[in-house]
């Protein structure tokens, strides 16, 4: 499996979206490449740990090769014995896929809100690629491919959006 397939597999487990939604076989936007690059660069820069991204990918690949289900892999990655930096890097990847933006997390444990998060969009395309619009069964604000009056009807099923 090449790094991109591993990345897409990992992303699928974390985001809850099927691989062929994240990276369709005929991929006209190819947003995955931008995300892998941005995730790698940002995590490396923020943690100073040039190996972290590969550690995560490798752990995913191993779990996957061991025949674990997506749920088991997710549990292992996020709630296993991984370091806080490992888990945070995974969470940031989730956020990136959903918003198309890189998050800046200000954790304030113990407060009523637990802190806050700001973020910065990667590109116009990453904005319109955000999974957040899919998970709400809608479309990016400002970029609808639906037709007049669709809003008076029920949307397609959630599973059509997530591919799961």
């Amino acid at each position: 499996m090449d790094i991109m397939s591993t990345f897409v597999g990992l992303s699928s487990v974390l985001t809850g979206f099927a691989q062929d939604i994240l990276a369709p076989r005929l991929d006209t936007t190819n947003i995955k490449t931008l995300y892998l690059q941005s995730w790698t660069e940002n995590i490396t820069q923020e943690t100073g740990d040039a190996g972290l991204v590969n550690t995560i990918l490798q752990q995913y690949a191993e779990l996957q090769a061991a025949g674990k289900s997506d749920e088991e892999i997710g549990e292992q990655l996020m709630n296993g014995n991984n370091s806080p930096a490992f888990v945070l890097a995974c969470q940031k990847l989730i956020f990136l896929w959903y918003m198309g933006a890189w998050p800046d997390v200000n954790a304030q444990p113990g407060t009523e809100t637990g802190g806050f998060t700001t973020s910065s969009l990667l590109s116009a395309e990453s904005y319109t690629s955000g999974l957040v619009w899919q998970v709400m069964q809608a479309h990016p604000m400002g970029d609808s491919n639906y037709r007049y009056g669709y809003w008076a009807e029920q949307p397609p099923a959630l599973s059509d959006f997530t591919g799961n």
Partner: protein
Amino acid sequence: MKNSTLLFSALPAALLLSACNTTATENKQATAGQAATTPLPVISPVIPADAQFHEPFSLESLQHDFDVFSWESFIALNWPAASVGVADTSVNIGQKPGAATVWQTYKESRDIFLPNGATPPPWGKDLPPPSVCGDQDLPVLNQIAKVPNNVLDESAEPFQTGPLVDQNGQYTRFEILTNDVMFNYIAEKNLYSKSGQEAFATEADFPFGTDSQVGSIMLKASWKVLGKNDAPEKFHTTKAYVYDNPDEHAGVKAACKLQTVGLVGFHIGTKLKGNPQWIWSTFEHVDNAPTQGEAINKKHYNYYKPDCTDCAAVNTPPPRPWNPGNAYTQPTQVMRVIPLDKPTKELNASYQAALEKLVPGSVWVNYELISTQWPTNADSKTDPTGAPAPAFLANTTLETYIQGTVRQTSSSCIQCHNNATMTSGKFSDFTYLLQRAQ
């Protein structure tokens, strides 16, 4: 699995990324190489019913197959006509310069959507030209039975984005036509009138093609009036009533002139089996405009003046008031924004070579495919546009002012036509034609 894991854990991430890119480029080169070594394409008067796909499928391979389909369609549609909708197989394309082509015998929009929603004349018959054109008959251009009443009554690009003015200060003219399959559907379902559309309970759904039968085809052509500095021998030409339509803009006075016009742009929309979003092919005259970021190496362009200091800004329409009847309007300075793909350029070269070989000096070598837009995920339940590839496609003569790569606003055939509806507000199946009903 274990191997690859080891492999990438040993490499820094950045390197891995570039490795990834390399694979993609290699693929492309392979496709390109292939195209260069294949023999010249076959030139045929038969409109292809479907595209022929070759495994293994990839974005690049499918694009190539659709592009071939586009060229085949273009050639068959531009074949000299023997009778309405029928190619004259006794000649080759390019052999009868100025002869009406197959598509020119199709049904023109002004012959479908008549005042008060009147019933259009049947297939093969059209209306007389507007009365200001006088009762002069079009000179007999060729031997075919039906001489089309070529009336060019449009001078505006869609959604009031502006007219396109050539280097002689003349407005470019447009026409939209349908083939028999599409026209018959409109006629049978009474979709040529507002009241017919109001009574139509469902969305429009034009017939698909099958493996062997051609389905619905719509065409849009742009023509320039040939004049000073234009070389008529480089164009497919026709004589047409160039009509200034007072309904188009406030202040336009009806006027009409019989003129020789040259084909500069050509859209083909085909409802291919399995592709409810249609397949969109667009062609242009090779001298229309230079491409941003590429060499400006021609002395003469139809819509661009090289080394000009006092020209209008690039891709900006003339100021209003717009009036095709003006004796002279400042020319539009046009550039192509999205360059043609390398494989498309190579395909163009091979078709042009084949056309030249078939009929030396053929005008058709002066036309090129810009690209073909097709849905990569035609059956998507969440995206009615089916994720088109390429995401953006514009013809510099038909979408001059909305070329670019911004979703929803830049020209994308499928994304835009996906919003087309009838006068009743119901979906019109990717054509803006039906909203012309009265």
